[in-house]
């Protein structure tokens, strides 16, 4: 099997797991980790799917994935700060359940 296909399939799998976790869990940290899984899955898909059949490394994709990783790190940091503040204020790691709005 082609390596790029393996990357793509792994990426799709990771995205699936991440999406499930994001929807299923209520714990804020778990959801943030799930978001990171989706992100990593996306990057794998980018690396694998986008350069299939070309035989050479695509610099554009490398630049995109690098930028994407930076953005994901920033997002995670922002999320962590907000979660920590929430924990300090409420002593809880979850948001209150949605009142049907």
């Amino acid at each position, binding site marked *: 099997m082609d390596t790029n296909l393996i990357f793509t399939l792994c990426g799709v799998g990771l*995205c699936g797991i991440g999406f499930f976790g994001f929807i299923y869990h209520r714990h804020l940290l778990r959801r943030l980790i799930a978001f990171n899984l*989706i992100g990593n899955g*996306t990057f794998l898909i980018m690396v694998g799917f986008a350069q299939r059949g070309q035989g050479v490394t695509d610099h554009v994709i490398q630049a995109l994935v690098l930028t994407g990783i930076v953005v994901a790190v920033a*997002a995670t940091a922002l*999320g962590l700060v907000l979660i920590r503040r929430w924990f300090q204020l409420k002593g809880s790691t979850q948001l209150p359940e*949605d009142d049907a709005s």
Partner: protein
Amino acid sequence: MNMILSPIPWLLVIPLAGAVLTMLVPYHWRSPASVVGIFTQLMASVVLWYQVTHYGPQFYAMADWQAPLGIALRADGLATLFILMSSLVASACAFYAHAYLSLQKRAHFWPLLWFLWASLNGIWLAADTFNLYVGLELLTFAAVGLVAFASDERSLEASIRYLYAALLGSMAYLLGVALLYGAQGTLSMDSLAETWHWGPTNQVAVTLILGGLLLKTAVFPLHTWLPPAHGGALTPVSALLSALVIKASFYILLRFWIEFQIYQFLPSLSQLLGALGAGAILWGGWMALRQTHLKMVVAYSTVAQIGYMTLMFPLLVAESSEASLLAYQGGILMLLAHAFAKAGMFLAAGNLIFCTGKPDLVSLAGMSRYRPLNIFAFGLAGVSLMGLPPSGGFNAKWLLLQSSFMSGQWWWIVVLLLGNLLSAAYVFRVFAYTYQETDALDTYKRPKLSLELIALGLSVGSILLGFISVWPLEMISLPGPVMEALP
């Protein structure tokens, strides 16, 4: 083009530099520095407007790095109009914030505002799908930071919800972009449009991008994060979020829909978008009618107004070029009128809450006697939102109505009219509270005159738009990628 002559780099570099600088300099220098920045932004927008109207669409490669690795920017009529809109509204909100916030708060407000401004300009000007992604993410971070800025429990909760919804949305968008790149080997909007072919990959990509952007624009039923975030934030922030931030993801959706001619190949998806818009109009209007807090009324009104903008998608039909053009113009005018009216309404609502010191509607009793100017500003914005003549909102709805007639889609007319009734109801409901007289002691605070004048100025802008509608409509009809892709 030379960096000095083209205003395009200034629109990105100055806000980014402003964000970093205002974080570094001492507190009392931050406001003067920002005021200088605001004026350069306004000037750059006007210069860009002049260049685009006289010399046609402008292109710029940042630091002479050409695509695909460099950052390519383009300004057509649509982008220029959005630049002008965001410069005007953001400046007004910035001056409002300067008068509204304490020195301490203000000092932390400026960096976030400049990040927000930079990402907005980046989105309006982006020529490729990946820059749009970076712009979207930066915008999210700045906006989430600004929501949490109110620093109470409710706004913190709202900002976490907002962050999670927005992150999911941008990841879906990025995945779509990756698939498009895999299928067509390019990121540039122009080359994507040239080589577009409807394979299964593109269909999955469009679905992902659509889902992500709908979540970020808060289109019904993905709107639940919006009311607490917009209603719970500080007043100038609420105005910025409702007037500008949600427009960014809508703008991207619009560009995709028209430039890649999705409206032509997937008309059923357009109808679905219209149905979501109709749901937003009715549900948002109904919920606005049931709120007990003033800013929540305005926030739910935003949900409803997003629905009106979404109504333009089913009206873009390949068979009738005239109906499509009317729908496009109506949708854009709707967006512009909403930007001014909603910013004005949020600021006026904030002033009223500042007076009474309480956020709920019942404490507004007696306000129309005590703060007539403010109520007037609120009312003018309401006129535009209700779509009464003469206002930008009226012209926009008139164009959408005509387009529905012309393309024979009468069901949207019913939605438009019902939505108008609902908006009238929730605006007049607020008025009813302000006319009540109670025996309670009047312990009102008086807001600064400048706060009231800024709110009034924005509301007057939304009315004025009704008189000068021809001008923005000419702007967006300038030759450019969007006009070429319309039937």
